[in-house]
């Protein structure tokens, strides 16, 4: 195992080949879905991309028979339905996202609608919709599927483990790492010396550095992965950023010392009448405003980045009639190129800000207060 782990590139390549091999769902459609030509279709495509997906879609093309082919690989669907835990491969939905295909599994029926899996009510065979296009005879299920985001999380987790456990192993033999470890070491030092140490303080920074390092690299690598054509949007998922923010919230709530709680609930040095008012504000700040600022900032920045980049790429489709193919394509290329460069910066910046603010909040909670 360790011998294989020493060749991380090999492992990853093998993983990709393994995942791509079995069922490239080169499956056909009647052509009504997939092609993105009009402004509405572009808008819908972008919003669809921003969401999580149940299969890993790489690209689509129309073959010589006029059939639409989608290339990618399916991911396992794991849902908690009325009949208990149910699993099947997402390829059963045939890349459908409009509730058209109905999957029967474990004695109950499922449809996929706007990247969500619904369970049909007992006896229903097709989905019926109300005026706002909400399904009337189906309900959402708890969805623990290995979605594209979960797949991204697993991939990044594996990458981080291979890289940093490898770096840790290097230190056993030599004082200064070589190869890729030489790139990773300054980043680790950066997080420790520029984020953890100044914000938490010399005394206690050590016990939180592991969390901060994990979060920093997790967010940064996933942000960068989102800029690749693989089209991950993990850090643009509210559920992911919410979980990250709640981790920070839990840490600074449980590690907060007497001084922290004292200052929150019964602020010393102000008139007694104001203290309860301040306490309300402080509690709201600690339990709502701080985690919300963390989760919304990351989610909004990354989602907005994806929307902007994809919209600029879409210029080559939407402006074709006004500017001609060459004009629209060059304008789209120049604009999206520069925005992508900025997004590379944003990818780092958001990881830095999230980690920095987490460190700051933790630092405020464990700070030694002087007795007034």
């Amino acid at each position, binding site marked *: 195992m360790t011998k294989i782990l020493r060749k991380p590139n090999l492992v990853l390549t093998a993983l990709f080949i393994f995942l791509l091999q079995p069922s490239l769902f080169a499956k056909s459609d009647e052509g009504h879905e997939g092609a993105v030509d009009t402004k509405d279709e572009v808008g819908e495509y972008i919003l669809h991309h921003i*969401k*999580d997906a149940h299969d890993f879609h790489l690209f689509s093309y129309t073959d010589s028979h006029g059939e639409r082919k989608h290339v990618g690989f399916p991911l396992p669907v794991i*849902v908690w339905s009325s009949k208990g835990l149910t699993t099947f491969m997402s390829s059963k939905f045939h890349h459908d996202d409009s509730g058209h295909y109905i999957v029967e599994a474990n004695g109950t029926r499922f449809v996929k609608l706007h990247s*969500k899996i619904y369970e049909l009510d007992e006896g229903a065979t097709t989905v019926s919709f109300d005026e706002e296009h909400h399904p009337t005879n189906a309900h959402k299920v*708890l*969805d*623990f*599927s290995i*979605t594209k*985001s*979960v797949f991204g*999380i*697993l991939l990044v*987790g594996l990458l*981080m*483990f291979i890289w*940093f*456990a490898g*770096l*840790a*192993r290097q*230190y*056993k033999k030599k*004082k200064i790492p070589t190869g890729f470890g030489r790139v990773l*070491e300054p980043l*680790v*030092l950066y997080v*420790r010396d520029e984020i953890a140490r100044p914000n938490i303080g010399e005394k206690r920074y*050590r016990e939180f*550095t*592991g*969390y901060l*390092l*994990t979060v920093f690299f*997790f967010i940064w690598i996933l942000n960068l992965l989102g800029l690749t054509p693989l089209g991950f949007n993990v850090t643009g*998922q*509210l*559920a*992911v950023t*919410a*979980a*990250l923010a*709640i*981790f920070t919230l839990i840490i600074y709530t449980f590690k907060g010392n007497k001084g922290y709680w004292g200052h929150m609930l019964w602020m010393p040095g102000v008139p007694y009448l104001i203290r309860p008012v301040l306490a309300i504000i402080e509690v709201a700040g600690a339990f709502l405003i701080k985690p919300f600022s963390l989760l919304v900032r990351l989610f909004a920045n990354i989602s907005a980045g994806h929307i902007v980049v994809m919209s600029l790429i879409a210029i080559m489709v939407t402006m074709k009639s006004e500017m001609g193919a060459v004009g629209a394509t060059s304008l789209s290329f120049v604009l999206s190129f520069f925005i992508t460069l900025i997004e590379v910066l944003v990818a780092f910046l958001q990881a830095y800000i999230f980690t920095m603010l987490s460190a700051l909040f933790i630092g405020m909670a464990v700070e030694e207060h002087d007795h007034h």
Partner: protein
Amino acid sequence: MEQLLNDFSPGLFVMQTVLLLGLIFLLVKFAWKPILNSLESREKGIQDALDAAEVAKKEMQNITADSESLLKEARAERESLLKEARELKEKILADAKEEAQKEGDKMIAKAQASIESEKKAAVADIKAQVATLSIDIAEKVIKDELSNKSKQQKLVDDMLGDIKLN
């Protein structure tokens, strides 16, 4: 807002929480702890090496100062030794000279004394010989006189004139 809440997937939230928890645990155990430990020990090693270098530098300075003072001392000692030797030499020379002078004086005095005594002896000897000669002459004169009066007279006169302080 409704759209956002609709998009929020509780399942993904659970998966992310579980996976992140696992990732934190694994990385802390297998990566961050050993990495931070070795970074710290390396930093400590560097700090120690720097401190040791500082101490060594100070020691070196001390040693240099010591050796310089030693050199100075040695030089001074050599100076004093040389001076002493020179003085000794001069003293020995002076002593030797004095001794030689004394010895010489003594020898000269002795020589003079011996010359004096030799001289005295010689004078005494001469006196004795003169006396003998005188007697011999007197004898011959007397004998001759006894044979030729005038001639004797003349002889006595001549002789006396010859002998006039030999």
